[in-house]
């Protein structure tokens, strides 16, 4: 049962996809052609990466004539930010319990 966070993590764990996404974040909407021109991979490969980013909700496409423009959807990153803050809170509370335990333990 893939959950949304799983899909998100997997889609961004690939450096090429992450670079494409990041470029869209930094530079705004772009076509597949424009993205391919500056990538070290082929246009079909870029298209495939964009498809996976779209499945994860990280990009949106807009058709204009024969061109497809892609833009980043930053709201989709929320679960990722959540993971780091959740795990930080988790370890902080466990360390509280650990300190409690250490005080109670025998020498």
């Amino acid at each position, binding site marked *: 049962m*893939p*959950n949304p*966070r*799983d899909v998100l*993590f997997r889609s961004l*764990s*690939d*450096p*090429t996809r*992450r*670079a*494409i996404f*990041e*470029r869209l*974040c*930094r530079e705004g909407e772009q076509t597949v052609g424009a993205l391919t021109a*500056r*990538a*070290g*991979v082929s246009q079909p490969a870029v298209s495939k990466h964009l498809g996976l980013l779209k499945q994860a909700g990280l990009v949106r496409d807009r058709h204009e004539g024969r061109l497809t423009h892609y833009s980043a959807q*930053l709201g989709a*990153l929320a679960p*990722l*930010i959540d*993971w*780091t803050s959740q*795990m*930080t809170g988790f*370890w*902080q509370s*466990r*360390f509280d*319990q*650990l*300190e*409690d*335990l*250490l005080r109670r*333990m025998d*020498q």
Partner: protein
Amino acid sequence: MSEPEGETLSVVVERDIPFPPERIWRALTQPHLIEEWLMKNDFQPVAGHRFTLRADPQPGWSGVIDCEVVTVEPNKVLSYRWGALGVDSVVTLTLTPTSAGTHLRVEQSGFRRDRPQNYQGARYGWQKFLAKLEQVLARIV
């Protein structure tokens, strides 16, 4: 041009504890003690040992974390793989003696290493990625 260590998203929590590393090590490696501060478990301090941590089940999650011991350096370093909710990560607990006790650090890294990258824009890892993203978000909001 790969930067393998950078291909992870890490959470780090650190704390100075007024007890020696040996006492903390016991709490990190003896199952009945681990249960008291972390979760129910069948841990053994042996590299390669597979074990589970068990929390109370929650909606959408069995409460089971699948783990495997990676590193055991008594009183110094303990690390294990930690798989839950579709995220594979590695938890590393590091103990450093101090004049007042021990500096305890936990790092949880959320991604496996990726294959070598071939896209010229991807020269840095998750931390920088998120930092930059925050800058982008700050500009937009």
